[in-house]
């Protein structure tokens, strides 16, 4: 990292606030850059754009000499006030890029040109941290595609639920940090439109982690206030929360002999004990196999057969450790603990934000989601679970239907009373044409786009701006002020008799991409293929029907298992399911019999 002289500790000092109150042993999240890898340049641009201290060429030479010696894989250039003027940053970044052609170089004014240096520097360093890997990945992808004569368009999913082209994604990989989960959320919104469910909580449970997201009225829940490992990432993104528990999560003894599940995971190698690749510790997948939910006879995607004996002995070893001889009870316990962690993550995004989860439907996908969804819903009294068709590929499917979406922000500072609308409009056009130029780097032929305008506005004297969507019909500063006041009143229940100022303009360019629609899938056969197996639920074995999802229609009473390529849906006793229009499974608890 290269930064302004006197500010090398900006990332380590951070904002100094603690996120966990009332714990004397809380530690500040560690910075990604070691203190000795942070170099300073004596330069300064003032808040109003005035150059206080220009960049000295000798200093740059000395810096380059040092960098050549250290030979870093990536450098983040982060100077104060570069959101006003990033010429110093660009000068130094360009010099580094030419001296170290292999090095990934980015600068904060390019990654995220907005006020507040700590958050901007942090986002920029994250960008540099993942930059080299992303570049390498994209380069090899493009070469491979080229060699196979691919002629289609390449889009990459970004964290905000839209797609961008490969050049932009390679330069600003930090905007793609949540691309996978964002695909799932985008798909869930599409699915909700088809099924008529407007309030959704998504639960995407994979091998190592689970992503949850709350969608109210099918509106994309956007935020810029997320973190990666406790470090701020201010790129626009969907409000997705991630927890470290999935099918491959390992069950182990924590403090005081309590069984804990995750965040450590067996990954793909060695994988769960049942994979027979040397894994010895029991995972959630092993527990599901012990209980008869996963089948030792049905190959996983990729053809692997699960080994029940290995799973049983792994769970058995854990059982021995707590003097518990009943392997099933321990396996059931492992799943209950994993479920409790999901439940607490869902509470955090719903109840803690003032939502009652009972007003939502749970959309379960990812390889392991449909296996646990009914248990999660049961705990938190969510009335219905939706399992989309092909849940293992649901996120990928969401990517296919996402629009091109790029946001461009520009700091500005003016009071409404001092400014003509025509000047404001001219500035907006400037940002819009910048946005178009940037999009054309990846998509030279693009023509039809929608443009959304947002202003960051506040009363003079305030520090935090309110994001105000400005319709294109607005054509005077007075109307702009009215839009601000009505937004402000809706949010804060009052308005002031004070001058209003604008501090940021944001333009989002949206290019529609035709998606495949949600009803994709194989033809519906008439009769379900049926087998039975003994499956353990809550203390006892049940004779359980097994269905092939591709052949399923109508409704089913639990207990039942629904198998398909890449996923398994578990329908516990006391639940029923029905197949819906979009071929989704809708799981609901049956009304309890009165006793």
């Amino acid at each position: 990292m290269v930064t302004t002289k006197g500010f090398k500790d900006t990332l380590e000092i951070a904002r100094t606030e603690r996120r966990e109150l009332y714990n004397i042993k809380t530690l500040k999240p560690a910075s990604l850059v070691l203190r000795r890898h942070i170099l300073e340049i004596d330069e300064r641009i003032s808040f109003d754009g005035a150059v206080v201290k220009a960049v000295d060429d000798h200093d740059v030479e000395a810096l380059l000499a040092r960098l050549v010696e250290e030979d870093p894989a990536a450098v983040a250039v982060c100077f104060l006030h570069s959101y006003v003027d990033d010429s110093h940053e660009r000068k130094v970044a360009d010099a580094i890029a030419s001296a170290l052609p292999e090095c990934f170089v980015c600068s904060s004014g390019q990654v995220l040109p907005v006020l507040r240096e700590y958050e901007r520097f942090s986002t920029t360093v994250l960008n540099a941290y993942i930059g080299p890997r992303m570049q390498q990945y994209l380069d090899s992808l493009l070469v491979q595609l080229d060699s196979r004569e691919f002629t289609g368009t390449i889009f990459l999913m970004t964290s905000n639920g839209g797609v961008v082209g490969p050049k932009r994604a390679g330069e600003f990989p930090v905007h793609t940090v949540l691309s996978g989960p964002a695909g799932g959320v985008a798909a869930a919104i599409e699915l909700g439109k088809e099924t008529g469910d407007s309030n959704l909580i998504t639960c995407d449970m994979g091998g190592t982690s689970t992503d949850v997201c709350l969608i109210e009225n099918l509106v994309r829940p956007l935020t810029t206030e997320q973190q990666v490992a406790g470090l701020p990432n201010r790129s626009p993104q969907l409000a997705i929360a991630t927890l470290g528990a999935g099918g491959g999560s390992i069950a182990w003894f924590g403090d005081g002999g309590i069984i804990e599940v995750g965040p450590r995971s067996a990954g793909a190698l060695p994988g769960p004990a049942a994979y027979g690749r040397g894994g010895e510790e029991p995972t959630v997948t092993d527990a599901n196999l012990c209980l008869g939910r996963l089948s030792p006879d049905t190959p996983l995607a990729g053809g692997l057969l699960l080994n029940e004996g290995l799973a049983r002995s792994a769970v058995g070893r854990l059982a021995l450790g707590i003097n518990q001889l009943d392997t099933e009870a321990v396996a059931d316990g492992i799943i209950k603990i994993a479920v409790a962690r999901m439940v607490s993550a869902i509470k955090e995004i719903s109840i803690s934000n003032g939502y009652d989860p009972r007003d939502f439907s749970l959309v379960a996908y990812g390889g392991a989601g449909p296996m646990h969804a009914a248990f999660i819903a049961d705990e938190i009294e969510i009335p219905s679970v939706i399992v989309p068709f092909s849940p293992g590929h649901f996120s990928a499917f969401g990517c296919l239907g996402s629009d091109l979406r790029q946001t461009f922000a520009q700091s500005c500072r003016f009071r409404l009373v001092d400014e003509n609308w025509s000047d404001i409009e001219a500035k907006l056009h400037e940002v819009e044409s910048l946005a178009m130029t940037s999009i054309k780097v990846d998509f030279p032929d693009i023509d039809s786009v929608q443009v959304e305008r947002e202003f960051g506005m506040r009363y003079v004297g305030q520090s935090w701006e309110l994001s105000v969507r400005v319709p294109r019909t607005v054509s005077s500063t007075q109307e702009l002020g009215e839009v601000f006041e009505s937004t402000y009143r809706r949010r804060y229940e009052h308005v002031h008799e004070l001058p209003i100022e604008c501090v940021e303009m944001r333009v989002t360019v949206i290019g529609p991409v035709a998606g495949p629609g949600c009803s994709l899938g194989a033809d519906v056969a008439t009769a379900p293929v049926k087998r039975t197996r003994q499956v353990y639920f809550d203390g006892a074995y049940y004779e359980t029907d097994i269905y092939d999802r591709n052949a399923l229609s109508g409704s089913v009473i639990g207990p039942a298992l629904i198998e398909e390529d890449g996923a398994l849906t578990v329908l516990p006793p006391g639940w029923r399911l029905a197949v819906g229009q979009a071929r989704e499974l809708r799981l609901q608890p049956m009304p309890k019999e009165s006793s």
Partner: protein
Amino acid sequence: MNTCQVNPITLEVVCESLRAIVKEMRASIIRASFSSAIYELDDFSCALFNPQADMVAQSDDHPGHVMPMPWSVKCAMEDFQGDIFPGDVLLLNDAYRGGTHLNDVTLLYPIFNDGELFIFPAVRAHWADVGGMTPGSYSGLATSIYQEGVRIPPIKLYERGKVNEGVMRLLLSNMRLPDERYGDLNASLGACRVAEQRIEKILGKYGRTLVLDCICENLDRSERRIRARIQDLPDGEYCYEDYLEYYDGDVLDPVLMRLRLKVSGDQLTADFDGSSPQVPGVVNSSLAVAGAGVFVAVKSTLDPQGPVNSGAFRAIALNAPEASIVDVRNDAPAGAHGEVRKRAVSVMLGALAQVIPEAVSGDLSGTSFPNSIGGYSKSRDRSYVYIEVPAGGNGGFLEADGSSAFVNVDFGSIRSIHNVESLESDMPLQVRSCVLREDSGGEGERRGGLGMRRELRLCEGEALYSVLGDRAVIPPFGMHGGGPAKQLSVSWERDQTVKLFGTPGKVTGHPIQKGDVVIMESAGGGGYGDPLNRDPEDVRNDMLSGYITQHRAEAGYGVLFTGEWEVDDARTSALRLDMLGRRLRLTVKADETYPYIGNRGKRRAVRLSEGTLTRLGARVGDLIELIGNHPAPLRCWIEFGGEIEQDICPIDEFGRSVLGVEPAETVWVRSLPGPSAAGGMAV
């Protein structure tokens, strides 16, 4: 305790919905406020109270605010018994009645249901200025509360929906930047109105009875939980003492905070008997504030995950002498409420270390360190008040080094400094640099965290600088032999000459002019464990990263390096053995003479012989610390004891119980160098 029969999911949903209201209030205030203390530093809190003055819900709110709040609500309820109506809004900041310092202004917004008072949303927010002798209302050297700003007893700002214009104008006329204050007030009011709507929604959905049942069960289960943790502690009495720095003019006269912590079954009593009477200086506060420190220490060592509401407070009783530094009365100042709270945390850590040594940390940096600069900016055509509270280090603990420049555990989620870019945009100040402060962390097997050094240049006109800090002379302590941290420091620079202030840590209205630089250096955290046991590789990394100097690596940790900056194992072992051998140990002798000296303050004196002084390399009046069998040290000032034998250390019973030593046992003694006041120490 009646156990309400509530469906556990409903209980969770209702309680969390109340908490979500508080979160929404918080978000609304941050975004809509005009004081940078609120919008940049998050120095405010919200909570919900019931008519019995129980705090029923809060979120990530500042413990220093929300814990004293029930006392304020109680006072307001007493003053207006039966005289509160829908549409009334109450305002208060009285530091003597559950308030903190006068800057923390509290708004209470009674909400009625079916004609009955049901719940109060409340906001306590730091207003950047509430009048008084200096911009920002922080006066490190104030001698009466009238110099600290306007004192507001519980009053009705709104009566039945109608604003009391006279009261409003009277208040705003006595504060600097009245427009900003008015904006802050409206931000708080707006947040309460949001809360009102949300509460109506919850009542509509669940009904009054069910909501009340949930509130009651939530308080009870919080009480049960904390009591279960206290039950696990061995019964007994655990003692500790520590100081706050009071200046009488430019003479340092430390005041004593003395604690007997009694554990009896599932009940805790924090008894401050023996603490100094209040002084005409800022280092006084109410028992509500000291109690907040007690609760924070209990919870953050025993039960970090437990809920925070009035139920959890029920298991802790407080006792203090009237009109003392922990129970302030008219008309003593109360500006250092944060310091009183933090010192309560320090004495609690010292006492708890005797019971749960593995759960505590070295002492924290121990001061809020509020710095303020106020003036008029011609270029912006407005007055401004700057305030920052640069965070110091945290104590090391069993598992890790303390974090650097990280707010202490009693400080909620406050951000202690502005973003440089926002600050420079809003005020005529330039941050010249902001870096970690080398060597400021206490030495230890686990090192204390570092403080920071932040330099601010005034870019325009003239201004007044004030600071109200503590731990500027008496440093934060280490545990289990860990070393003290570096004290905080403030200085100012004109024409490249740096000058210190005569009253370290406390300044009122010092005039500065364009080009002057104020240098603020926050204290570090105390070390944990003997520094000679620190892994030499960790010492090496600290040195290569610039957290410690090479001198400190050698003199403090006994680590020597080769020419290639690798650890020289052989020489390091030899040096460490030698350092261990040179430590001075004194033999304890029982001496029940009243040990405290001072004028208005009280500080522990220890009489040592001339020979002992020579061996220690110390002089009469120097501050030293004794380390006995208990983890935390005992601090004292040297008096000359002609009749005392060499290497003998006379200590009274309280002191011996702090140290955990019997007569004839030995204690390790070391001196604590630091700055001194221009006028010396009080006699």
